[in-house]
């Protein structure tokens, strides 16, 4: 069973493992393996070496920002993140100097189409705030309406509180957050929002809430509830990638998978993406669509190669030709 789980799973905390079982990313056997990693490692070490290890494990904010810079595009967002870092560090210096700390919450709204990097940036935010000592754990808990809203009176608050408990110390990422306000006055979604807002006030120090969704719907959502607007001070827009950025993303993705794009594939991809620009963004999802295209091409390449009689070189095994990509969008 564990072989269907992608190997990149690398939870940062026990809560994240439980969250992943919950959303169906983890089979129980894999989960136990991951959990035992958390449990046995500290038990076998003395406290001194453990402390040392923790220090080593702690990332510097620079390392997180370097990871952020590796993302394609998103220039405005990179700038805002740098501003936040500077603000936090200066506040800490002020506190050390005995000056009053400027209370500010960092709850955020991410608006953008699917596949524009919202979750990726949210994950980085968790790591950044952990490295800056604002959050104690820095893990990401991804939820949607169904995780927060209950079916009968009283159920919602219970459900929402459980989610908040899981997310405490890290980032609570509410995807498609506008759907909480969709059902009208009698809908339990409103109760979920209230519970969330209450938790944000109580746990100001150790919880970061990020609401995410499509730009238009998020604008409407924030408009329906003036209290929200003031509580989410930081609003980031994730623009759709243009064709060149998408090709750059594709190049990086194939590199990570030990493949290479043939020149005709790169040209064909650029043509395909720019011809369709603005046409699919809403539904297909930017970077995610590129990934699907690539995965399709990788499968097609395997078929092409296995049909060949001549011996295959390393170059053949790495090269993705344009013919592999054709038909991948349909």
């Amino acid at each position, binding site marked *: *069973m*564990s072989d*269907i789980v992608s190997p990149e799973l690398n939870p940062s905390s*026990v809560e994240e493992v*439980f*969250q992943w*079982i*919950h*959303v*169906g*990313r*983890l*089979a*129980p*056997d*894999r*989960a*136990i*393996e991951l*959990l*035992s990693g958390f*449990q*046995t490692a500290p*038990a076998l070490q003395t406290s001194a070496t453990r402390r040392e290890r923790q220090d080593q494990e702690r990332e510097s904010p620079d390392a997180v920002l370097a990871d952020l810079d590796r993302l394609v595009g998103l220039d405005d967002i990179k700038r805002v993140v740098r501003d936040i870092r500077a603000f936090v560090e200066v506040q800490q210096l002020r506190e050390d100097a005995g000056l009053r700390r400027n209370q500010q919450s960092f709850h955020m709204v991410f608006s953008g189409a699917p596949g524009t990097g919202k979750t990726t940036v949210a994950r980085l935010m968790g790591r950044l705030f952990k490295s800056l000592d604002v959050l104690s754990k820095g893990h990401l808990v991804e939820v949607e309406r*169904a995780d927060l809203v*209950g*079916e009968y009176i*009283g*159920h919602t608050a*219970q*459900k929402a509180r*459980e989610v908040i408990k899981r997310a405490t110390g890290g980032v609570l990422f509410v995807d498609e957050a506008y759907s909480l306000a969709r059902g009208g006055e009698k809908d339990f979604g409103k109760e979920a929002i209230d519970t969330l807002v209450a938790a944000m006030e109580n746990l100001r120090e150790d919880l970061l809430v990020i609401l995410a969704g499509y730009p238009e719907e998020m604008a409407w959502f924030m408009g329906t509830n003036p209290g929200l607007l003031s509580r989410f001070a930081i609003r980031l827009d994730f623009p759709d990638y243009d064709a060149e950025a998408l090709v750059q993303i594709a190049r990086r993705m194939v590199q990570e998978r030990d493949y290479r794009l043939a020149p005709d594939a790169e040209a064909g991809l650029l043509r395909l993406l720019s011809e369709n620009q603005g046409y699919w963004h809403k539904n297909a999802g930017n970077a995610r669509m590129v990934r699907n295209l690539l995965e399709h091409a990788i499968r097609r390449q395997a078929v092409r190669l296995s049909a060949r009689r001549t011996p295959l070189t390393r170059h053949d095994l790495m090269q993705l030709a344009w013919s592999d990509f054709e038909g991948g969008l349909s």
Partner: protein
Amino acid sequence: MQLSVVGKPNVGKTLLLINFAAYLGLRDLQLEVEEDGIRRTQRLSLERARRDLVSLYAPKTTHLQRMTLELPLGRQHPVIRAVDTPGIPEGISPDAERRHQTAIALEQVMASDLVLHVVDAGAAGTRRPEAAGAFDVALASWGKARSGYCLIANKMDKPGSQDGLRLIKERFRGTALIPVSAVTRRGFRDLKGWAQRILL
């Protein structure tokens, strides 16, 4: 102190817990059921618990059941909170509620002092869903490093369970193993002895 019983669906976790409590001389148990976020407590006689909580054919425990048992182990009577977890299926379940219960069950197991990991000796080596699988192997290797962990080969009353026990012994070599039958109460003495050693 917390004791948890964990394993695949339909390996006999609930009956094991109830009958073990009866073996230790208990008459009733405090049952705390958490369903949809609402917690109810009720006092059940063991008779009644057996009738209501156990099914012969299908997995019956779908929610986490907390029972408070006062287990007379040793000179003191340590009060043990026993947690009966819903069966954990192999692989990723398509049912969200099931996954949620799995997450809660594992959370409880990780937090327990005593973990009874139940496998079905009657089904070992067969293709039935109760047969030990990847999840059981992973849990056993997690438990090896802990003192409060024990593998229970249940259903030793079933035909073919001797062969099953041999298979289980081979597969989980190096793990503390107690063969038990929750129905005939065979092996309960060993189980009690083990628990006493851990608790004292």
